């Protein structure tokens, strides 16, 4: 399995550290709990629950033995075919906008 790092080019996956699903979002710890569920519920979802799809998966890898950038890699979990890798920072900025 080879990951196309946007900075270093295509490299073997043994140069990378795997973190997991890139779709999970750290909850806002100051938000009010939703009615009927404990305040810890969003944390339960964030820390433990995963969609775990058989198919296209967007996931976080860090190029620890290269440029050390965090990447969002799009990969099919049934075939290990990788269809793209982007800077995690770029993905986060596109999603959330620049920090205030």
């Amino acid at each position, binding site marked *: 399995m080879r990951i196309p790092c946007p900075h270093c080019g295509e490299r073997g*996956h043994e140069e990378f550290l795997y973190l997991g699903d890139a779709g999970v979002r750290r909850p806002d710890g100051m938000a009010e709990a939703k009615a009927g569920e404990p305040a810890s519920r969003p944390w339960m979802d964030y820390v433990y629950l995963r*969609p775990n799809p058989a198919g296209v998966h967007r996931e976080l890898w860090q190029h620890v033995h290269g440029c050390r950038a965090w990447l969002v890699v799009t990969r099919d979990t049934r*075939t290990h075919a990788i269809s793209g890798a982007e800077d995690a920072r770029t993905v986060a900025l596109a999603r959330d906008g620049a920090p205030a």
Partner: protein
Amino acid sequence: MRYSIFSLLSEALRGNTGWQPAWRDPEPKASYDAIIVGGGGHGLSTAYYLAKEHGLTNVAVVEKGYLGSGNVGRNTTIIRSNYLLPGNIPFYEHSLKLWEGLEQDINYNAMVSQRGVLHLFESDGTRDAAARRGNAMRLEGVDAELLDREGVRRLAPMLDFDSARFPVMGGLWQPRGGTVRHDAVAWGYARAADRRGVDLIQNCEVTGIRVENGRVLGVETTRGFIGAPKVGLACAGNSSRVAAMAGLQLPIESHVLQAFVSEGVKPLVDQVIIFGAGHFYISQSDKGGLVFGGDIDRYNSYAQRGNLPVIHEVMEAAVALMPSVSRLRVLRQWGGIMDMSMDGSPIIDKTPIAGLYINCGWCIGGFKATPASGWCFAHTIARDEPHRLNAAYRLDRFATGDLIDEAGTGATPNLH
């Protein structure tokens, strides 16, 4: 037909013309008292114990492929109960006890071989951890013995004691551990369940779970709808996919674990040997092949194959532990899909949906648990409440904080 020395002799005299198929191949009925999804080791043992212990024989096991086509045939066949935590030890010890009586119970030769499991340590820290684990085991009545370097040398003289990067200091020895012929476990439970009236329905993939007003009604399959007031999921590797059909999201990631068999050699490894420094385990099959494996590949996967870097790591560990195997050739290599749970321990429990039960999250250690898993799951399904032995394996323990983190690595499925 009951298997015995007499059936063997009479068939030998008749030229083996009288053997019957080991189980029927029935058409699915419109409904059952209970349906087990997944015809692997855990599903088949669940069906067997439902029939044997709870008198529930109007039961179907539905399997998308053929019986035993998943992880029950994709492991390294090791059985042991050398666990540390209170939620785990009694469960795995119960499993080992069931293994000890299994062949007589199901009238099938599963080649249960209690050759012993030797877990090596290579540092002061891992020695202390092994001593603690051994003490925890003995407090629960499990056999455990702490061996020093010479004790290990007597059992396994071929290990590298002299020039290793991580020299063997000793080992935790569980004499009652060993190996079992894994396919025979699936076949034996299948035959025993079939003989008690359970319908084993192969090539029948579940495509949906019908739920109405919070209660399960049955499963949609490629061979039509099958109704049942109770449905048990035992499809580790694909648990997330199947549970999603009922709208449940699980604390699980699917990962691939590879294993290997070498060419056959004369008896070399008499026990199961586990090498802590490299996370590596090895035993020798009765055919002479060395059966061994290491870590999971550490990324989500549903492909039943892994990649080269982990193969490299496993071979390095093998040669580090036993330099004498360096020129052996590997004959076969395969991958199985593991339910890696968020604390490294399994789940055998009811779900928020009435009548739907789940058995999942076996991580890399499901094979040894096959009998107790089925035994406890059958109890949970039949009585609608967990047995004392699986009471800790709750689905909601992640919300309540009652985790069973044997490895102490937290919510990192790829490190368990």
